[in-house]
C-alpha cells in the first residue's frame, strides 16, 4: 500500500494546490485546454507505447531531433551529428545549456541512461525500445546479461557515439524521449507520477485519473516559447461531448475522433474553426497469396484494386475527410512520390481481367472472407458488396476482436483485409520497411519481392536523403506496379481551434508540442 499512499498523497497535495493556484490566478494564467479520449496508459517515456500517452509525453520529453510544421526534421537535443565512415554509427553533438525539469544539465549520460532503461527487460520498455534493435549490445541487455549498452559511448558531456551492427541511417530521426538519469534516484520507481524528468517545453504536474493531466510551462525551455502557462489535457471519452465542450468554451482545442468529424464538417460555425492535415497513415487492402490461390495471379489482384470506388468511399463513409492514396507513402512524409496516380475505378476492365484470369463473372473463385475489426465494419461491407457486384467474387465479411485480429495478421493467417499503419517517425521508410519488406514481422499480407527487399536494404544504408527517396520511389513502384496491394485512402485529421488561440500546429503526426501556442 506504499504506492497507494504516495499517489493519494500526491493527489491530495500537489493536485489540489496546483488546481487552486491555477484557479486563483485564472485571471492572468493562460491554460490551454484540450481533449484526450481516455486516460493515457502511462506518463513515462520508458514504457510509452500508445498514441494518447504520446500526445501528453511529446510535450514533456524530447529526442535528438524534432519535426517542424512542414514535417521536416530539425535538430532538437542534438545540434548536429556525423555519420561514421563505415556507415555503422553516428556521433551526436548535444545542445549545451539545456536543463532538465529537475534542474540538471542535459548531458550524454542521460542519453545512454535512457537507452539502457528502454532495453532493460525489467522496465517493459515500450515503442521506442525497438529503435535500438541495431545498436551494438542491445540484445545483451534484453537478454538480461548486462545493463551496460556496449554500443553507446559517452565521449564528453556533449558528445555521444552510437554504434550499430548494421547500417541504420535514420537513427537520428527516431523519436526518442530522453529523460534525466537522476529521476529514479530522486523519486523512486514511480518517479513519473511525482516529478517531471524531461527537457521539453512543458513540465508534468499531475494526473487525476479519469479527469485530466496537467502540465505547466517550463520557464527554462531552451527553444521557442512556451507562451502559455499550462496545458490541461481533459479526459473526454465521448468525441461528441468534446465538441459540445468546445462549443461551450470549456475546451480551446479539440482533436476530433472519426465519429464527430461529420458533425464538425456539417456545422458551418464549427467547420470555420476547424483545421485539417492528412494523417501519416497508409491504408491498404492486404491480399495474402499463400492463403488464397487466385491472388497469385496479378490480373486478379488488379481486378480487385480497380473494382471499388475510392471517391465514393470518401464521400459516403468519411464525410469527405479523406483522399485517395496512390502509393504506400503518405503526403507530408519524406519520400512521398507525388507523381503516382491513384488506381482508377474501372469495373469493365476489372471484369475483363478476371475473365482473362479464368474466372469469368467470378465463376470458379473459391469463397473468401474479408476480415477486420468492428470500427471498420462499414469499410469491409463496402468492399464485399463491390467485389460481389462488380466481380461476382464470393466474399463474406468477418469481424474479429482487435487483439486477436492483429495477432492473426502478424502470423500471416488472414487472407484478405483492409488495414493501416501509422508512421512512428517522419520518413517513408517506416511504411515500406515495416509493412512491405519481406522479413518484417508486420508484413501482414506476406507479399514478397526480392528486388523490393534489396532496394529497402540499400535505402537503409543510404545516408543521402534524395538518393534514398529515389530508392523508396523505385521500391514503391514495384509494389504498386504488380498490384502487391491496393492502396485505398488517407484520412484527414480534423481539429477544432478557438479563434483566440494561435500557433496550434496540426501535422501528419498529430499535434506538435504546444510551445508555439499563444492565447489572446
Amino acid at each position, binding site marked *: 500500500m506504499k504506492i497507494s499512499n504516495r499517489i493519494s498523497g500526491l493527489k491530495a497535495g500537489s493536485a489540489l494546490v496546483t488546481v487552486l493556484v491555477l484557479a486563483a490566478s485564472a485571471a492572468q494564467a493562460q491554460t490551454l485546454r484540450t481533449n484526450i479520449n481516455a486516460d493515457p496508459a502511462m506518463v*513515462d517515456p520508458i514504457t510509452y507505447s500508445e498514441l494518447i500517452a504520446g500526445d501528453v509525453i511529446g510535450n514533456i520529453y524530447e529526442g535528438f531531433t524534432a519535426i517542424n510544421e512542414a514535417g521536416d526534421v530539425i535538430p532538437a537535443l542534438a545540434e548536429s551529428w556525423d555519420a561514421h565512415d563505415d556507415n555503422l554509427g553516428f556521433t551526436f553533438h548535444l545542445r549545451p545549456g539545456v536543463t532538465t525539469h529537475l534542474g540538471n544539465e542535459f548531458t550524454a549520460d542521460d542519453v545512454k541512461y535512457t537507452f539502457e532503461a528502454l532495453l532493460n527487460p525489467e522496465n517493459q520498455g515500450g515503442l521506442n525500445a525497438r529503435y535500438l534493435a541495431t545498436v551494438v549490445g542491445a540484445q545483451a541487455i534484453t537478454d538480461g546479461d548486462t545493463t551496460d549498452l556496449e554500443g553507446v559511448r559517452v565521449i564528453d558531456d556533449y558528445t555521444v557515439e552510437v554504434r550499430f551492427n548494421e547500417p541504420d541511417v535514420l537513427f537520428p530521426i527516431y523519436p526518442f524521449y530522453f529523460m534525466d538519469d537522476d529521476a529514479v534516484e530522486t523519486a523512486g520507481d514511480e518517479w513519473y507520477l511525482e516529478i517531471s524528468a524531461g527537457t521539453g517545453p512543458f513540465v508534468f504536474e499531475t494526473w487525476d485519473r479519469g479527469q485530466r493531466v496537467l502540465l505547466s510551462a517550463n520557464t527554462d525551455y531552451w527553444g521557442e516559447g512556451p507562451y502559455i502557462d499550462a496545458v490541461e489535457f481533459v479526459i473526454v*471519452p465521448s468525441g461528441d461531448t468534446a465538441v459540445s465542450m468546445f462549443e461551450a468554451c470549456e475546451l480551446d482545442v479539440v482533436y476530433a475522433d472519426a465519429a464527430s468529424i461529420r458533425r464538425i464538417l456539417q456545422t458551418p460555425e464549427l467547420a470555420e474553426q476547424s483545421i485539417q492535415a492528412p494523417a501519416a497513415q497508409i491504408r491498404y487492402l492486404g491480399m495474402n497469396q499463400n492463403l488464397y490461390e487466385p491472388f497469385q495471379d496479378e490480373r486478379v489482384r488488379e481486378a480487385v484494386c480497380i473494382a471499388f470506388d475510392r471517391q465514393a468511399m470518401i464521400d459516403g463513409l468519411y464525410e469527405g475527410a479523406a483522399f485517395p492514396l496512390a502509393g504506400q507513402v503518405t503526403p507530408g512524409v519524406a519520400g512521398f512520390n507525388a507523381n503516382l496516380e491513384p488506381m482508377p475505378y474501372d469495373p469493365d476492365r476489372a471484369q475483363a481481367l478476371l475473365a482473362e484470369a479464368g474466372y469469368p463473372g467470378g465463376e470458379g473463385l473459391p469463397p473468401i472472407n474479408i476480415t477486420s475489426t468492428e470500427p471498420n465494419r462499414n469499410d469491409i461491407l463496402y468492399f464485399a458488396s463491390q467485389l460481389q457486384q462488380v466481380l461476382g467474387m464470393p466474399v463474406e465479411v468477418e469481424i474479429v476482436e482487435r487483439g486477436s485480429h492483429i495477432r492473426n495478421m502478424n502470423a500471416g493467417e488472414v487472407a484478405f483485409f483492409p488495414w493501416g499503419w501509422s508512421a512512428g517517425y517522419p520518413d517513408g521508410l517506416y511504411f515500406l520497411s515495416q509493412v512491405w519488406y519481406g522479413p518484417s514481422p508486420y508484413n501482414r499480407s506476406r507479399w514478397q519481392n526480392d528486388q523490393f527487399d534489396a532496394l529497402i536494404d540499400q535505402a537503409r544504408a543510404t545516408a543521402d536523403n534524395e538518393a534514398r527517396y529515389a530508392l523508396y520511389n523505385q521500391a514503391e513502384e514495384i509494389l504498386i506496379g504488380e498490384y502487391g496491394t491496393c492502396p485505398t485512402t488517407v484520412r484527414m485529421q480534423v481539429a477544432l481551434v478557438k479563434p483566440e488561440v494561435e500557433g496550434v500546429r496540426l501535422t501528419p503526426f498529430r499535434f506538435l508540442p504546444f510551445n508555439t501556442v499563444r492565447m489572446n
Partner: protein
Amino acid sequence: MLRYGVGRLLGLIPVLLAAVILTFLANQAVPGDPITGLLSDQSGDAALEARLRAAYGLDRPLWQQFVDYILGVLQGDFGLSFRFAQMPVIDIIGEGLLISPVLALSALAIAFPLGMLLGTIAAIRQNSWVDTSIILVLVAGISVPNFALASFLVYIFAFQLDWVPVAGWGSFSQAVIPITLLVVPTSAYIARLNRTYMLEVLRTDYIRTARAKGLREKIVIWRHAVRNTLVPLLTTVGIILGGLLSGTFVVETIFNIPGLGSLAIQAIFARDYPVTMAIVLLFTVFYAGINLIVDLLYSAIDPRIRLGDRTA
C-alpha cells in the same frame, strides 16, 4: 433483528463468491486476451509475449490464477492493472470509488419523493386531466433514451441558458445534468408504481373506514394511504438502484465523470480484467448493502413485519 442482520451479512459471502466466479469466467469467455491486447502490433514476438505473461501471472493454470486472486483480494490486493503500466488496481479504483454510488444515491434521494408525489397526485385525481397529463409525462420520462435526453438537457441548460458546464466533475453545477438524467426515468418509474399501489390502497376497507370516521381527506391520503404504499415501493428500491448504477455507466461516459462506471467501460474495452473484477465486486457489495438496509427498513415502516423473529 441483530441476528437477522448478521445472518444476512454472512449470506453475502456466497453472493460475492458467485460474483467473482461469474466475472472471472465471463472475462475468460470474452473474445480477446489482455496480453495480445497489450502487445498489439508486436504480437507475434514470442519472447516478449512470454515475458509479459509471466509478469502478469497469466502463465499459471486458470484455477491457480483464480485461487491466487481470491487470496490476494482477502488481503486487500486486487493485482496490477493491464492497461495502466504497472499500476495497482487499488490505486486506480480508489480515486473514483464513491462517485458512482454518490450519483446513484443522490438521484434516488430526489427521484423517490418526487415519484411518490406524482404517483399519489395522479391516483387521487384518477381519470382527470391531471392524471392524464402526469401519465403522459411519465411515459415520456421512461421511454426517452438517456443519451437523447442528455443532448437535450445539455442544449437547454449549457448552451441556451448557460447555467451549467457541458461536462466534467468536481463542482455542484457539473452534477446537475448527470443527476437529472438519472432522476427522470427513475422518478417516472416510481410514480407509475405508486399510482397503481395507491389506487389499490384507496379501495381498501381501512381507507373507507378512515373516510367514514370523517377524517380530512389530506390525513386519509398522506397518513394512511401513502404509508401503506411505502412497503411495496421499498421492495423495488433494490431493483431501481441496480438500474441507477448501470445508468451511471452511460452518464459518466457522456459527461466525463471519473467514477467507477466510466472506468468499468474503459477497463472492459481494454480487457483490463483486474480492474473489471474489482469494480464488479465493489458494485456487488454496494448493491447488497443497500438491499440489506431496505429489508431492515421494512420492519420500521410496517410493524407487522418482524424480521427473523420466528417466535412472534
